[in-house]
């Protein structure tokens, strides 16, 4: 079964759940409706034999509506075929259904998305932060979170400060000059 055929099979079984499909270099992606994620996921695993969830990633399309997007990268070991499921998640959505009982590897991927993007998952067994510490008040991969960070303080656990992004020996100057002129070692140290 090819990637194309699996999409067709998916569209037949869930005629109103598949919003649109795209193809890029032989790999198929399809956008699905959020409220039937688990049905589609179970079908992909059991009927289409996508037995391997490679990764779950999330995108912040800041300024658009719906704001977030979650991508499930699937792979079928028996058919050697990739499939990507996309899920649009509006900002006001309380939580997305978990798929950890369908693909156990989703457990940590969903924790990472919760940690970095702040999207919660219904029915997740252990939805704690995975990279930052419990109690860190921000979601750093959101587009409205500044690169230099925000100050925070948790006594005896951790603190953060705002990072200086200009000056210093490791910052490349923003200009149209060649990289030789822009890069730190080409400049004399600032005294």
């Amino acid at each position, binding site marked *: 079964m090819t990637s194309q055929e699996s999409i067709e099979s998916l569209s037949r079984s869930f005629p109103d759940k598949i919003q649109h499909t795209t193809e890029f270099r032989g790999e198929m992606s399809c956008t699905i409706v959020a409220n039937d994620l688990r049905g589609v996921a179970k079908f992909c695993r059991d009927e289409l034999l996508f037995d391997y969830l490679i990764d779950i990633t999330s995108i912040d399309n800041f300024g658009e509506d719906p704001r977030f997007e979650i991508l499930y990268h699937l792979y079928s070991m028996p058919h050697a075929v990739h499939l990507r499921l996309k899920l649009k998640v509006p900002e006001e959505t309380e939580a997305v259904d978990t798929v950890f009982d369908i693909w156990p590897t989703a457990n940590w991927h969903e924790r990472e998305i919760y940690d970095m993007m702040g999207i919660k998952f219904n029915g997740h067994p252990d939805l704690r932060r995975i990279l930052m510490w419990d109690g860190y008040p921000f979601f750093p991969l959101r587009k409205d979170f500044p690169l230099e960070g925000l100050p925070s303080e948790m006594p005896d656990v951790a603190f*953060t400060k705002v990072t200086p992004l200009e000056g210093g020996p490791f910052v490349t100057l923003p200009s149209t000059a060649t990289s030789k002129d822009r890069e730190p070692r080409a400049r004399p140290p600032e005294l």
Partner: protein
Amino acid sequence: MPETRATAYDSKIEGNVIFTRFDAALNWVRKNSLWPMPMGLACCAIELMAAAASRFDIARFGAEVMRFSPRQCDVMIVAGTVTYKMALAVKRIYEQMPEPKWVIAMGACASTGGMYRSYAVLQGIDQLLPVDVYVSGCPPRPEALLAGLMKLQEKISRERSFRNQKPELAEKLEESFA
């Protein structure tokens, strides 16, 4: 008639006694037996291991006894990127080291945050610990770390150890001699 002689001179032990300042002797002992706490957090730790291995051989400077218990360490070598999540753990380990203690910030990340201008990285371990020697490089070669260690030895040999660590006793002695 009782024989008198200088108390400090005895022909029987001539050549075996050295006069020196107490600090100089103490510092000489300390600087040649620095037990490092290997705080390896990133790629600098690989160079730290290379410095300890046979080719570069940190044992030539008396610092080969890497201790993984902070209670047995003299110098913490912070080798690598210190994230905010790790920062207070590094501080806790430093606080468990007995006095006197020193810190080497090894490499760009430990010294300044290095190339990680990011929300997650502490911009230099000197924001938390008193750093004695900064070693530049990304990562520094083992020779650079050894040079840093020798700088630290120079610094230790200039320290007023007795006065710094036993101020009351030093004062008492000064009073009694005054």
